[in-house]
């Protein structure tokens, strides 16, 4: 029983392309996030949603657009991919709100070539 699942696990694409990463959680949590982990393993929040509503947008370029069709899903669409977008993207969810423990998906390793 996967709690937070995201697809795909690996994504290799060319500069300029548009791609999406999907995330679903079956934990019944109200809060979901997208995090970016860079090559130095630093984990930084990108977006946070609570009950389908955007709560946090951490100075992320407009090329990144999250969408939450319902509180169990939070997808991430990236337009015009750049080399610097290469990283591991994690979806996560929390049971009690923004600053409580997070449950992470397995990550999507995005490589832009």
């Amino acid at each position, binding site marked *: 029983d996967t709690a937070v699942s995201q697809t795909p696990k690996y994504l290799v694409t060319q500069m300029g392309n548009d791609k999406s990463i999907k995330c679903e959680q079956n934990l019944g949590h109200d809060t979901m996030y997208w995090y970016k982990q860079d090559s130095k393993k630093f984990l930084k929040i990108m977006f946070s949603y609570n009950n389908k509503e955007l709560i946090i947008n951490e100075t992320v370029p407009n090329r990144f657009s999250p969408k939450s069709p319902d509180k169990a899903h939070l997808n991430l669409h990236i337009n015009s991919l750049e080399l610097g977008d290469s990283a591991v993207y994690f979806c996560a969810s929390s049971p009690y709100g*923004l*600053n409580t423990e997070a449950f992470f998906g397995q990550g999507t390793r995005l490589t832009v070539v």
Partner: protein
Amino acid sequence: TQLLEQSPQFLSIQEGENLTVYCNSSSVFSSLQWYRQEPGEGPVLLVTVVTGGEVKKLKRLTFQFGDARKDSSLHITAAQPGDTGLYLCAGAVYGNKLVFGAGTILRVKS
């Protein structure tokens, strides 16, 4: 400038040794969490500490939250190769988001 400073950044030890990882900040946190991340996986929550001075034990792992709720430590007794991984602390600033430290990469050699 990172809100949470973790040290050391990298630790390589022999099986059976003890170690301590530190997480420090000038900010006060409503709670602090420790996660462990293995290669190719997402971080997994180990513990949450909430009360200043709190000590929690998880088998050979001991977590402590500073009295002022600005720092925390993770101590591992008799480390085993299975403890190898990236250890992340994350602090919850009152009413705000979760911020992560840069992590400590632990390698335990057999």
